[in-house]
Protein backbone atom coordinates (compact mmCIF):
# COMPACT_ATOMS: atom_id res chain seq x y z
CA UNK A 1 0.00 0.00 0.00
CA UNK A 2 1.18 3.48 -0.81
CA UNK A 3 1.75 5.79 2.13
CA UNK A 4 1.71 9.20 0.52
CA UNK A 5 1.47 12.11 2.87
CA UNK A 6 1.07 15.85 2.79
CA UNK A 7 -1.62 17.75 0.98
CA UNK A 8 -3.15 17.35 -2.45
CA UNK A 9 -1.72 19.66 -5.13
CA UNK A 10 -3.94 22.74 -5.42
CA UNK A 11 -4.19 22.82 -9.18
CA UNK A 12 -6.34 19.76 -9.80
CA UNK A 13 -8.85 21.97 -11.59
CA UNK A 14 -6.59 21.56 -14.61
CA UNK A 15 -7.85 18.01 -14.98
CA UNK A 16 -10.43 18.91 -17.54
CA UNK A 17 -10.82 15.33 -18.75
CA UNK A 18 -10.81 13.62 -15.39
CA UNK A 19 -13.15 10.76 -14.68
CA UNK A 20 -11.51 8.83 -11.88
CA UNK A 21 -9.55 10.24 -8.97
CA UNK A 22 -8.44 7.89 -6.24
CA UNK A 23 -6.18 8.82 -3.36
CA UNK A 24 -7.61 6.35 -0.89
CA UNK A 25 -5.67 4.62 1.86
CA UNK A 26 -2.80 7.09 2.15
CA UNK A 27 -1.91 9.61 4.84
CA UNK A 28 -3.00 12.71 2.98
CA UNK A 29 -4.13 15.62 5.07
CA UNK A 30 -5.23 19.20 4.87
CA UNK A 31 -8.25 20.21 2.90
CA UNK A 32 -9.90 17.93 0.44
CA UNK A 33 -9.44 19.53 -2.96
CA UNK A 34 -11.90 22.36 -3.38
CA UNK A 35 -10.74 23.10 -6.89
CA UNK A 36 -12.20 19.98 -8.40
CA UNK A 37 -15.59 21.61 -8.01
CA UNK A 38 -14.69 23.42 -11.21
CA UNK A 39 -14.91 20.12 -13.05
CA UNK A 40 -18.67 20.28 -13.15
CA UNK A 41 -18.88 19.36 -16.81
CA UNK A 42 -17.27 15.99 -16.34
CA UNK A 43 -19.34 12.90 -16.78
CA UNK A 44 -19.00 9.68 -14.86
CA UNK A 45 -16.75 11.32 -12.32
CA UNK A 46 -15.65 9.37 -9.26
CA UNK A 47 -13.69 10.54 -6.24
CA UNK A 48 -12.25 8.02 -3.83
CA UNK A 49 -10.54 9.85 -0.99
CA UNK A 50 -11.32 7.49 1.86
CA UNK A 51 -8.92 6.40 4.58
CA UNK A 52 -6.71 9.44 4.73
CA UNK A 53 -6.44 12.23 7.27
CA UNK A 54 -8.22 14.99 5.39
CA UNK A 55 -9.41 17.69 7.73
CA UNK A 56 -11.73 20.65 7.68
CA UNK A 57 -15.05 20.68 5.95
CA UNK A 58 -16.68 19.25 2.87
CA UNK A 59 -16.55 22.16 0.40
CA UNK A 60 -19.97 23.56 -0.43
CA UNK A 61 -18.71 24.13 -3.93
CA UNK A 62 -18.80 20.39 -4.48
CA UNK A 63 -22.50 20.87 -4.90
CA UNK A 64 -21.60 22.00 -8.43
CA UNK A 65 -20.50 18.51 -9.36
CA UNK A 66 -23.93 17.48 -10.47
CA UNK A 67 -22.55 14.71 -12.65
CA UNK A 68 -20.56 13.12 -9.85
CA UNK A 69 -21.35 9.43 -9.63
CA UNK A 70 -19.25 8.10 -6.77
CA UNK A 71 -18.00 9.96 -3.71
CA UNK A 72 -16.22 8.25 -0.84
CA UNK A 73 -14.84 10.45 1.93
CA UNK A 74 -15.06 7.87 4.69
CA UNK A 75 -12.40 7.43 7.36
CA UNK A 76 -10.99 10.92 7.36
CA UNK A 77 -11.07 13.72 9.92
CA UNK A 78 -13.61 15.94 8.24
CA UNK A 79 -15.68 18.18 10.46
CA UNK A 80 -18.50 20.62 10.06
CA UNK A 81 -21.84 19.71 8.63
CA UNK A 82 -22.78 18.00 5.41
CA UNK A 83 -23.51 20.92 3.05
CA UNK A 84 -27.14 20.91 2.08
CA UNK A 85 -26.16 21.90 -1.41
CA UNK A 86 -24.91 18.36 -1.93
CA UNK A 87 -28.56 17.55 -2.55
CA UNK A 88 -27.79 18.74 -6.04
CA UNK A 89 -25.63 15.70 -6.67
CA UNK A 90 -28.49 13.90 -8.29
CA UNK A 91 -26.35 11.42 -10.19
CA UNK A 92 -24.64 9.97 -7.16
CA UNK A 93 -24.71 6.21 -7.12
CA UNK A 94 -22.52 5.75 -4.07
CA UNK A 95 -21.91 8.16 -1.22
CA UNK A 96 -19.98 7.55 1.97
CA UNK A 97 -18.97 9.98 4.70
CA UNK A 98 -18.81 7.44 7.51
CA UNK A 99 -16.17 7.62 10.23
CA UNK A 100 -15.36 11.31 10.26
CA UNK A 101 -16.08 14.07 12.76
CA UNK A 102 -19.07 15.50 10.95
CA UNK A 103 -21.76 17.07 13.04
CA UNK A 104 -25.15 18.61 13.00
CA UNK A 105 -28.40 17.42 11.59
CA UNK A 106 -28.37 15.66 8.27
CA UNK A 107 -30.67 17.98 6.45
CA UNK A 108 -29.87 16.82 2.98
CA UNK A 109 -31.96 14.47 0.94
CA UNK A 110 -28.91 12.26 0.88
CA UNK A 111 -30.23 10.77 4.11
CA UNK A 112 -33.17 9.34 2.26
CA UNK A 113 -31.19 8.20 -0.76
CA UNK A 114 -28.45 6.38 1.10
CA UNK A 115 -28.72 4.15 4.10
CA UNK A 116 -27.18 4.52 7.50
CA UNK A 117 -23.92 2.84 6.60
CA UNK A 118 -23.04 5.94 4.58
CA UNK A 119 -23.21 8.10 7.71
CA UNK A 120 -22.20 5.97 10.71
CA UNK A 121 -19.19 6.76 12.81
CA UNK A 122 -19.82 10.48 13.14
CA UNK A 123 -20.66 10.80 16.81
CA UNK A 124 -22.04 14.32 16.50
CA UNK A 125 -24.06 13.74 13.40
CA UNK A 126 -27.78 13.61 13.98
CA UNK A 127 -30.57 12.46 11.82
CA UNK A 128 -34.00 11.12 11.60
CA UNK A 129 -33.88 7.35 11.71
CA UNK A 130 -31.97 6.18 8.71
CA UNK A 131 -32.92 3.29 6.58
CA UNK A 132 -30.84 0.23 6.17
CA UNK A 133 -31.31 -1.57 9.43
CA UNK A 134 -33.80 -4.32 9.75
CA UNK A 135 -34.92 -6.32 12.70
CA UNK A 136 -37.91 -7.91 14.29
CA UNK A 137 -39.28 -4.66 15.47
CA UNK A 138 -42.61 -3.07 15.15
CA UNK A 139 -42.80 -0.62 12.34
CA UNK A 140 -42.80 2.30 14.70
CA UNK A 141 -39.17 1.66 15.57
CA UNK A 142 -36.17 2.04 13.40
CA UNK A 143 -32.66 1.17 14.35
CA UNK A 144 -29.76 3.48 14.16
CA UNK A 145 -26.43 1.90 14.66
CA UNK A 146 -24.63 2.71 17.87
CA UNK A 147 -21.53 4.08 16.24
CA UNK A 148 -23.57 6.63 14.49
CA UNK A 149 -25.94 9.22 14.47
CA UNK A 150 -28.57 9.46 17.07
CA UNK A 151 -27.16 9.71 20.50
CA UNK A 152 -26.72 13.45 20.69
CA UNK A 153 -29.97 14.40 19.14
CA UNK A 154 -32.21 12.61 21.56
CA UNK A 155 -34.34 14.40 24.04
CA UNK A 156 -34.59 11.91 26.83
CA UNK A 157 -33.10 8.64 27.73
CA UNK A 158 -34.82 5.56 28.98
CA UNK A 159 -31.58 3.79 29.68
CA UNK A 160 -28.20 4.93 30.71
CA UNK A 161 -24.95 4.38 29.04
CA UNK A 162 -21.51 5.77 29.64
CA UNK A 163 -21.62 7.00 26.10
CA UNK A 164 -24.98 8.62 26.33
CA UNK A 165 -24.97 12.39 26.58
CA UNK A 166 -28.47 13.63 26.11
CA UNK A 167 -28.40 17.05 24.62
CA UNK A 168 -31.78 18.31 23.69
CA UNK A 169 -30.86 19.36 20.23
CA UNK A 170 -33.85 17.62 18.96
CA UNK A 171 -36.46 16.58 21.41
CA UNK A 172 -38.72 14.92 18.92
CA UNK A 173 -36.96 11.69 19.46
CA UNK A 174 -36.52 9.43 22.37
CA UNK A 175 -33.47 7.33 22.03
CA UNK A 176 -32.71 4.35 24.07
CA UNK A 177 -29.40 2.71 24.23
CA UNK A 178 -29.75 -0.98 24.02
CA UNK A 179 -27.64 -3.88 23.16
CA UNK A 180 -29.04 -6.15 20.60
CA UNK A 181 -27.59 -9.52 19.98
CA UNK A 182 -27.21 -10.02 16.30
CA UNK A 183 -28.48 -13.43 15.31
CA UNK A 184 -28.20 -12.99 11.63
CA UNK A 185 -26.04 -15.66 10.11
CA UNK A 186 -24.17 -13.35 7.78
CA UNK A 187 -22.76 -11.26 10.58
CA UNK A 188 -19.61 -12.35 12.33
CA UNK A 189 -20.10 -9.91 15.15
CA UNK A 190 -22.16 -11.55 17.82
CA UNK A 191 -22.95 -8.40 19.65
CA UNK A 192 -23.58 -4.97 18.31
CA UNK A 193 -24.76 -1.88 20.04
CA UNK A 194 -27.70 0.04 18.78
CA UNK A 195 -29.80 2.95 19.61
CA UNK A 196 -33.36 2.85 18.78
CA UNK A 197 -35.49 5.82 18.28
CA UNK A 198 -39.17 6.30 18.43
CA UNK A 199 -41.56 9.15 18.51
CA UNK A 200 -42.57 10.27 21.98
Amino acid at each position, binding site marked *: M*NQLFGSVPPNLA*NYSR*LSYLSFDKNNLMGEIPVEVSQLEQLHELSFFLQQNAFQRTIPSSWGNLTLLQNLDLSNNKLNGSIPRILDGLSNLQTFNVSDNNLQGLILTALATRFNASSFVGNPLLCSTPLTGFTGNLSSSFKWVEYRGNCRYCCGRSRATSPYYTPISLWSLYLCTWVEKRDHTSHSKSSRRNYYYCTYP
Partner: protein
Amino acid sequence: MDLSGNQLSGNLPVELGNCVSLQTPDLSNQDLTGNIPSSYTSLSNLQSFSLANNSPIGEIPVGFTTSAGLEAFSVRGNALNGTIPADLGALSKLSSLCLSNNLLSGQIPVPIGNDFNFAVLLPRKNQLNGSIPNALGALSKLEKLDLA
Protein backbone atom coordinates in the same frame (compact mmCIF):
# COMPACT_ATOMS: atom_id res chain seq x y z
CA MET B 1 4.08 -9.01 -31.27
CA ASP B 2 1.25 -10.34 -29.16
CA LEU B 3 2.24 -13.25 -26.98
CA SER B 4 -0.27 -12.50 -24.26
CA GLY B 5 -2.20 -15.20 -22.52
CA ASN B 6 0.16 -18.05 -23.29
CA GLN B 7 1.96 -19.93 -20.60
CA LEU B 8 5.46 -18.77 -21.29
CA SER B 9 7.73 -19.30 -18.35
CA GLY B 10 11.33 -18.79 -17.43
CA ASN B 11 13.45 -15.70 -17.37
CA LEU B 12 12.71 -12.76 -19.59
CA PRO B 13 15.00 -13.23 -22.60
CA VAL B 14 17.78 -10.69 -22.82
CA GLU B 15 17.90 -11.25 -26.57
CA LEU B 16 14.51 -9.66 -27.05
CA GLY B 17 16.32 -6.38 -26.68
CA ASN B 18 18.01 -7.06 -30.01
CA CYS B 19 14.70 -6.96 -31.87
CA VAL B 20 14.91 -3.24 -32.32
CA SER B 21 12.04 -3.11 -34.76
CA LEU B 22 9.58 -4.33 -32.14
CA GLN B 23 6.77 -1.86 -31.74
CA THR B 24 4.11 -3.35 -29.51
CA PRO B 25 5.41 -6.38 -27.59
CA ASP B 26 2.70 -7.79 -25.33
CA LEU B 27 4.05 -10.27 -22.85
CA SER B 28 1.21 -9.94 -20.39
CA ASN B 29 -0.38 -12.79 -18.45
CA GLN B 30 2.49 -15.25 -18.62
CA ASP B 31 4.69 -16.74 -15.97
CA LEU B 32 7.86 -14.90 -16.89
CA THR B 33 10.39 -14.30 -14.16
CA GLY B 34 13.79 -12.75 -13.61
CA ASN B 35 14.81 -9.16 -14.03
CA ILE B 36 13.59 -6.94 -16.82
CA PRO B 37 16.75 -6.92 -18.97
CA SER B 38 18.19 -3.48 -19.48
CA SER B 39 18.57 -4.45 -23.13
CA TYR B 40 14.84 -3.74 -23.50
CA THR B 41 15.61 -0.06 -23.21
CA SER B 42 17.29 -0.40 -26.63
CA LEU B 43 13.93 -1.08 -28.28
CA SER B 44 13.85 2.33 -29.85
CA ASN B 45 10.69 1.73 -31.89
CA LEU B 46 8.44 0.81 -28.99
CA GLN B 47 4.95 2.20 -29.04
CA SER B 48 3.60 0.07 -26.24
CA PHE B 49 5.15 -2.35 -23.82
CA SER B 50 3.20 -4.70 -21.59
CA LEU B 51 4.58 -7.11 -19.09
CA ALA B 52 1.48 -7.08 -16.92
CA ASN B 53 0.68 -9.98 -14.64
CA ASN B 54 3.89 -11.95 -14.70
CA SER B 55 6.45 -12.65 -12.01
CA PRO B 56 9.49 -10.55 -12.81
CA ILE B 57 11.49 -9.20 -9.95
CA GLY B 58 13.94 -6.38 -9.55
CA GLU B 59 13.68 -2.88 -10.79
CA ILE B 60 12.26 -1.16 -13.84
CA PRO B 61 15.38 -0.37 -15.86
CA VAL B 62 16.31 3.21 -16.43
CA GLY B 63 16.69 4.23 -20.06
CA PHE B 64 13.35 3.67 -21.74
CA THR B 65 13.80 7.21 -22.99
CA THR B 66 15.35 5.57 -26.04
CA SER B 67 11.80 4.64 -27.00
CA ALA B 68 10.72 8.17 -27.78
CA GLY B 69 7.48 6.96 -29.36
CA LEU B 70 6.33 4.95 -26.33
CA GLU B 71 2.68 5.64 -25.62
CA ALA B 72 1.69 2.91 -23.15
CA PHE B 73 3.79 1.16 -20.58
CA SER B 74 2.32 -1.46 -18.28
CA VAL B 75 4.07 -3.60 -15.73
CA ARG B 76 1.13 -3.94 -13.37
CA GLY B 77 0.61 -7.02 -11.27
CA ASN B 78 4.21 -8.03 -10.84
CA ALA B 79 6.66 -7.97 -7.94
CA LEU B 80 8.89 -5.17 -9.12
CA ASN B 81 10.70 -3.14 -6.52
CA GLY B 82 12.94 -0.13 -6.56
CA THR B 83 11.73 3.29 -7.54
CA ILE B 84 9.73 4.68 -10.44
CA PRO B 85 12.37 5.72 -13.02
CA ALA B 86 12.21 9.49 -13.25
CA ASP B 87 13.14 9.40 -16.91
CA LEU B 88 9.71 8.01 -17.81
CA GLY B 89 8.61 11.62 -17.45
CA ALA B 90 10.75 12.51 -20.45
CA LEU B 91 8.68 10.31 -22.77
CA SER B 92 6.59 13.01 -24.30
CA LYS B 93 4.14 10.66 -26.04
CA LEU B 94 3.55 8.44 -23.02
CA SER B 95 -0.11 8.63 -22.14
CA SER B 96 -0.64 5.52 -20.06
CA LEU B 97 1.66 4.45 -17.27
CA CYS B 98 0.34 1.49 -15.33
CA LEU B 99 2.52 0.45 -12.42
CA SER B 100 -0.16 -0.81 -10.05
CA ASN B 101 0.20 -3.82 -7.80
CA ASN B 102 3.96 -3.94 -7.47
CA LEU B 103 6.39 -3.25 -4.64
CA LEU B 104 7.69 0.08 -5.91
CA SER B 105 8.92 2.38 -3.19
CA GLY B 106 10.28 5.88 -2.81
CA GLN B 107 8.61 9.00 -4.04
CA ILE B 108 6.65 9.78 -7.17
CA PRO B 109 9.35 11.42 -9.31
CA VAL B 110 8.67 15.08 -9.95
CA PRO B 111 9.55 14.76 -13.69
CA ILE B 112 6.49 12.54 -14.13
CA GLY B 113 4.59 15.82 -13.98
CA ASN B 114 6.42 16.98 -17.10
CA ASP B 115 4.63 14.53 -19.34
CA PHE B 116 1.61 16.52 -20.35
CA ASN B 117 0.18 13.67 -22.38
CA PHE B 118 -0.61 11.45 -19.43
CA ALA B 119 -4.18 10.28 -19.54
CA VAL B 120 -3.80 7.33 -17.21
CA LEU B 121 -1.42 7.31 -14.29
CA LEU B 122 -1.77 4.31 -12.07
CA PRO B 123 0.80 3.70 -9.39
CA ARG B 124 -1.95 2.08 -7.26
CA LYS B 125 -1.02 -0.43 -4.60
CA ASN B 126 2.71 -0.03 -4.28
CA GLN B 127 4.82 1.13 -1.36
CA LEU B 128 5.30 4.71 -2.42
CA ASN B 129 5.76 7.42 0.15
CA GLY B 130 6.48 11.12 0.22
CA SER B 131 4.11 13.78 -0.97
CA ILE B 132 2.23 14.14 -4.23
CA PRO B 133 4.36 16.37 -6.49
CA ASN B 134 2.62 19.63 -7.28
CA ALA B 135 3.66 19.04 -10.88
CA LEU B 136 1.00 16.34 -11.17
CA GLY B 137 -1.56 19.09 -11.06
CA ALA B 138 -0.31 20.27 -14.45
CA LEU B 139 -1.30 17.06 -16.23
CA SER B 140 -4.28 18.58 -17.95
CA LYS B 141 -5.11 15.52 -20.05
CA LEU B 142 -5.36 13.24 -17.08
CA GLU B 143 -8.46 11.05 -17.08
CA LYS B 144 -7.61 8.55 -14.42
CA LEU B 145 -5.30 9.11 -11.47
CA ASP B 146 -5.08 6.36 -8.90
CA LEU B 147 -2.59 6.78 -6.07
CA ALA B 148 -4.35 4.47 -3.61
